[in-house]
């Protein structure tokens, strides 16, 4: 469908983290997906499904308690999993990948002015950059992003929550990264600031200042408003991927179907629909089950589900899922139910 240049390719990525009680938690297992230039992908899932760990893992910069197990992360043709941690830090973070965590706005050192952070970010990759060049770049960038230029000479504490978060995003994307990873960048904000933050991310994408974006949130309506594609994660695995409209209005995997059915929006008609509920709890990622990880909670579970491990199947058109049943079988199943 889309034939853009591939910006990010993730193959069979597995990572784990080690708890303080020295137990392994396999928080990301066998995750594969590609992200094309100019597109954004959202990662949805319940808390503890591994979406935040995936975001950290994608940076290719592993420090305890996070540990790499296997897989490749290829950014614009460059495999960063084969690189030394120092090289990743110097040559990948910032220019290739930028990361914005939920509370990014609180990470700014309150004693320094915004422009100093921009100088730091630019000089980390180009030590010879002159002050004037950096300031010109910063002014220009702030202008296109509709941020007041005066912000550059302010301290973080002088800014409101929403403004701070937008400033942080502008600072971290100053080098026009190929991939931007935003992990719940707006969930600590009020809805009005949230909209402004999302609008800015959208502008960055539209202007090509960020080539592609991964957006992580547990709020499905928000995700639908932000990204082109949606990946649903369950128990450290990708269970379904597709474009946002397909995923929200026509989910195929039984888990995605449940998740989308549990979405609440203040719009006419939603009061009358029955809210979906999935009984049970996700499996323990210290000892993930052998078969389908959703089998224990699945309405349509079959005996073989608990025995065979289920691979990811492409349904075509960029869509795919992790279920023993094929696309048509699933559709038939839902048709019978209705």
């Amino acid at each position, binding site marked *: 469908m889309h034939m853009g240049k591939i910006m990010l390719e993730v193959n069979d990525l597995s990572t784990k983290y080690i708890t*303080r*009680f*020295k137990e392994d938690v396999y928080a990301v297992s066998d995750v594969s997906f590609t992200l094309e230039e100019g597109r954004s992908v959202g990662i949805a899932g319940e808390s503890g499904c591994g979406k935040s760990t995936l975001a950290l893992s994608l940076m290719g910069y592993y420090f*305890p*308690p996070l540990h790499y197990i296997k897989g490749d992360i290829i950014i614009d043709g460059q495999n960063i999993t084969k690189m030394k941690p120092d090289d990743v830090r110097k040559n990948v973070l910032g220019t290739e990948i930028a990361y914005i965590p939920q509370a990014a706005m609180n990470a700014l050192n309150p004693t320094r002015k915004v422009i100093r952070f921009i100088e730091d970010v630019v000089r980390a990759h180009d030590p010879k950059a002159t002050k004037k060049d950096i300031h010109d770049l910063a002014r220009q960038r702030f202008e296109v992003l509709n941020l007041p230029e005066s912000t550059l000479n302010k301290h973080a504490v002088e800014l409101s929550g929403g403004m701070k978060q937008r400033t942080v995003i502008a600072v971290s994307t100053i080098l026009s990264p190929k991939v931007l990873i935003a992990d719940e960048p707006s969930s600590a904000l009020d809805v009005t600031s949230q909209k402004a933050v999302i609008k800015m991310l959208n502008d960055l994408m539209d202007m090509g200042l960020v080539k592609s974006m991964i957006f992580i949130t547990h709020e499905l309506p928000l995700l639908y408003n932000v990204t082109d594609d949606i990946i649903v994660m369950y128990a450290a695995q990708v269970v379904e991927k597709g474009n946002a409209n397909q995923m929200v209005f026509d989910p195929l995997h039984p888990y995605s179907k449940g998740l989308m059915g549990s979405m609440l929006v203040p719009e006419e008609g939603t009061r009358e629909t029955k809210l979906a509920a999935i009984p049970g709890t996700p499996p323990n990622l210290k000892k993930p089950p052998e078969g389908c990880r959703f089998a224990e909670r699945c309405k349509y579970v079959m005996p073989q589900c608990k025995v065979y491990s289920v691979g990811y199947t492409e349904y075509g058109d960029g869509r795919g899922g992790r279920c023993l049943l094929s696309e048509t079988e699933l559709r038939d199943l839902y048709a019978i139910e209705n």
Partner: protein
Amino acid sequence: MKTHLRAVLRSGKFIVGFTIFAAILLLVFIYPLFNPGNPLQMIGYNSFTKPGTYVSLYDSLDTRRVYTFRPPGAADVRIDAKLSPEDRESIMEWLLSYSEQEGLGLTERDIDIEYTEGLMALWWQYYDSEIRLDGMTIARRREFERLDLRLDGLFNLDDLHVMALDPETGEYDILFATVSDDDYVNVDDVANVIYLPLGTDGFGRDVLKQLVSAIGTSLWIGLIAGSIATAIGLTLGLISGYIGGIVDDIVMFFTNLITVIPGIVLLILISYSISQLERGPVTVAIVIGVTGWAWTTRSVRSQVMSLRNRDHVNLSKLSGHSIPKIIVRDILPYIASYVVMAFILQISIGILSEATLSMLGLGPSTTTTATLGLMLDWSIMKSTAHISGAWWAYYPVILAIALISFSLNLMNTGLDQVFNPQLRD
């Protein structure tokens, strides 16, 4: 909780700390069984006898079994014991200055200080206590006189005859023992042998025995002081943190008051105001405990204040529980691990405070019980171990204090890493 306990037992720091502490405790309990008696008994009349095994000279002579050994080199060892390398240097120095004064023409090359016989021959040939060398102090001259006396009969290997006094004639004419240079006795056969692994202190008391008993006493002082400080701190912290308002203000006023006055000043003032007669180890422990609660109060209070607004406390209130019940059931268990850590640190602080006070002469006023602080006081402040080079009288004490607080702090850190999720490694 179970996972936490398992994690504690897997924490390297805790295990090391606990092992050291257990070993110290074991020593305190086991050692007196092998070496009973009053640890403060003065067994010697000399101050600071060095560590070692002491045999009674009298009993050695009187030992019935005498063995004959002719180990090679015995004579050299004996000569080396009497004639040290410094003595040899002194001899050469005297000979050179004498030769210069008299124009004998002896040079350094003519004197081989390694060759004992040659050296002694020269010495005996020229030395006379009457000779006065230019520029030599009287003290130095006396030294050479003493050296000469000591070296008299250096090569003499004749039997020694020890005579006893004849009660009838009043003269030494009864042969008590004949000792030849190859007579040996087994240490086990000698009737009186004293083992002093750490020598004696300035009052002739066995340092090791005293140290073991002092560790025991100091641990008791730490335990009493720590218990009192923790009990006061916990109670005040719980009350002021949970009730808040005016109660909090009053408690915090006194806590701040105690915090801003340096603890040691308070300790000194209180200790000084107690009369010497009443200042036993327990009194000192109580004084330390009563002055040391402030920071426990502060930290317990802040913990309680954060817990007070937790939903489970609100829910407990909504269930109609009384304040004491809420404190005991919904707050205390949450801070228990923290209180245990504070207690461990308080013990360590108690021991250190006692040592400080005692060094200042404000510790327990007693001559019947030893504490680690008193041992330091006795050996350094009241006598001159550090000047006489009697390291054994104070280094082991310092080491014991260091080991105890090190082990307690290690245990504390180990616990902290397990119970405080912010400190994950």
